[in-house]
């Protein structure tokens, strides 16, 4: 790609999607239906530009200056402070509703152009946010005139060397791009914001539809608007500093360390799959405990039971989790995925991880999230989770509930891509006994046992023992005999 200069926006994820930010000195069109977050994005970028030394003008046509500043302040952009410091200039161009505008004959948009020239000369601005082109060109002139007006405006921005963000209303999410239908031709970048209904949930997405002379991520990416503004989740991981040395740590279970040739690898994501009652939560608890006992910071996200119940259950089997929580190295957070949107949950995770800075993360179980969302929503969530985890070189253990007898079978492709290691827990009735097994299905970057290990529950958690080939065959024969006897 060419030597195009870009300006970073500071909007989480946006600079990843656009491989560096906005085209400097060029115009970017942001389109979306009403309520998709165009103004939030515009104000958030404006605030970041001001903070990083690019004076910016926000032209408000849909909302008054006071309303725009209040919106920004609510989201923590501190627009009022930036205005006081002279870095931000909000130009109130809202038309009074009681002042009619009649269109009669030919005209051009040079009135605004001269005003902007004047404003730029006064303020020294290098960037501009126009909110919005749709409101500016209302009532709407004929198509050819509209095209020439829009061109005049973009040409003016270009002449003044302004990095511009032009917001425009889209009539629908997917059909015609903009209400005016002409804006995208003259802008170097086009960003589409959407608010989709996905089952019972609303899902925000953002897409870079075009970026002249630059590569960009293709397709829709999940995003959310929180009390801190817009956050986008690029579905793949930012580069993490690769460690030359392979570092291992104990899984918290001696037998599992043996199976994995000396323990789990740092900076990897473990997926533990198994049916209900197979010991996933217990394994997760042992993993968290071992980390906290090594004085690592560990965060445990429980999606299946309330926090007191989870801690009590762990303490019942003697893990002493309550004490580790009180010690401060282990943090247990329980959430109900049904009660929040997946995007908000992602933001919650991201902020939580930023604040607590754990080296180990447990999520038990991702199936609770899977059941509370659409397939597409869950896939995007998981890819977002992986991105958050990998971006900081964290190690994680995720659990997933599957049907008995299927734990070692294939996983959804996106899940097996995310997981650096897959461990399956399973059981099968063999008459009076329940045969419990554990296998390491895959482990990237490490030798590992592929044989099944025998799992027993007992005081202190899990006991894992190597199973001889004969021993395993005997156990399977016992299962078969039991099944035959019942059929």
């Amino acid at each position: 790609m060419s030597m195009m200069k870009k300006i970073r926006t500071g909007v989480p994820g946006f600079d990843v999607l656009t491989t560096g930010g906005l085209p400097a000195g060029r115009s970017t069109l942001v389109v979306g239906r009403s309520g998709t977050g165009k103004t939030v994005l515009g104000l958030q970028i404006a605030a970041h530009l001001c903070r990083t030394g690019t004076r910016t003008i926000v032209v408000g046509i849909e909302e008054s200056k006071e309303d725009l500043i209040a919106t920004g302040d609510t989201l923590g952009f501190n627009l009022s402070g930036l205005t006081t410091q002279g870095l931000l200039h909000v130009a109130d161009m809202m038309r009074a509703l009681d002042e009619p505008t009649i269109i009669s004959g030919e005209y051009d948009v040079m009135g605004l152009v001269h005003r902007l020239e004047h404003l730029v000369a006064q303020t020294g601005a290098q960037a501009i946010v126009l909110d919005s082109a749709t409101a500016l060109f209302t009532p709407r002139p004929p198509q050819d005139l509209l095209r020439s007006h829009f061109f005049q405006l973009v040409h003016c921005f270009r002449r003044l060397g302004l990095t511009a963000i032009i917001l425009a209303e889209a009539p629908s999410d997917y059909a015609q791009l903009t209400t005016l239908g002409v804006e995208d031709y003259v802008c170097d970048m086009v960003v589409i914001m959407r608010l989709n209904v996905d089952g019972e949930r609303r899902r925000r997405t953002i897409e870079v539809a075009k970026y002249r002379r630059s590569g960009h991520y293709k397709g829709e990416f999940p995003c959310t608007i929180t009390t801190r503004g817009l956050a986008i989740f690029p579905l793949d991981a930012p580069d993490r500093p690769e460690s030359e040395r392979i570092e291992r740590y104990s899984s918290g279970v001696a037998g599992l360390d043996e199976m994995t040739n000396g323990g789990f690898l740092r900076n990897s994501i473990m997926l533990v799959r198994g049916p209900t009652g197979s010991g996933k939560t217990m394994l997760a608890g042992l993993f968290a405990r071992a980390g906290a006992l090594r004085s690592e910071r560990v965060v445990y996200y429980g999606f299946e039971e309330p926090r007191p119940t989870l801690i009590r259950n762990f303490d019942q089997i003697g893990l002493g989790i309550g004490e580790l929580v009180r010690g401060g190295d282990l943090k247990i957070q329980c959430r109900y995925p049904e009660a929040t949107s997946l995007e908000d949950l992602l933001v919650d995770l991201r902020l939580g991880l930023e604040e607590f800075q754990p080296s180990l993360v447990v999520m038990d179980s991702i199936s609770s999230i899977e059941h509370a969302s659409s397939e597409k929503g869950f896939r995007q969530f998981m890819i977002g989770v992986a991105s958050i985890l990998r971006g900081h070189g964290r190690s994680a253990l995720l659990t997933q509930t599957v049907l008995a007898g299927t734990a070692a079978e294939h996983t959804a492709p996106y899940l097996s891509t995310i997981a650096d290691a897959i461990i399956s827990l399973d059981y099968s009735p063999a008459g009076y006994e329940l045969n419990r097994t554990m296998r390491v299905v895959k482990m990237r970057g490490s030798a590992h046992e592929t044989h099944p290990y025998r799992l027993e529950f007992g005081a202190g958690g899990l006991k894992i023992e190597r199973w001889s080939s004969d021993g395993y065959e005997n156990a399977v024969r016992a299962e078969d005999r039991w099944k035959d006897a019942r059929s």
Partner: protein
Amino acid sequence: MSGARPSGASTPRVELVLYVGADSSHTAAARRNCEERLARFDHRRVRFEVCDVSQHPDRAEDDGICFRPVLLKRRPLPRAYVVGDLSNSTALVDLLVSCGVEPLR
């Protein structure tokens, strides 16, 4: 109502500003169209001025002018904007009549 029409000094004067640009092809047409139509009115009751936005961007700012030409009725309130060169239009006449200023016979 007596049907008495307000007249003379008792009626408010209408204030019009035509925002134009020297480099615009629409300027001459807009100016000519305004002047032709205003010729039919009592000039004491209508104050008309022409303002070049490139010379007076601050005035355009104060009056919220984005396009040109724009004919702005500043007084009486509320303001009204006629955007365009006013060709083939009764907009200006309608505006004055709505303010109680009738054409001369």
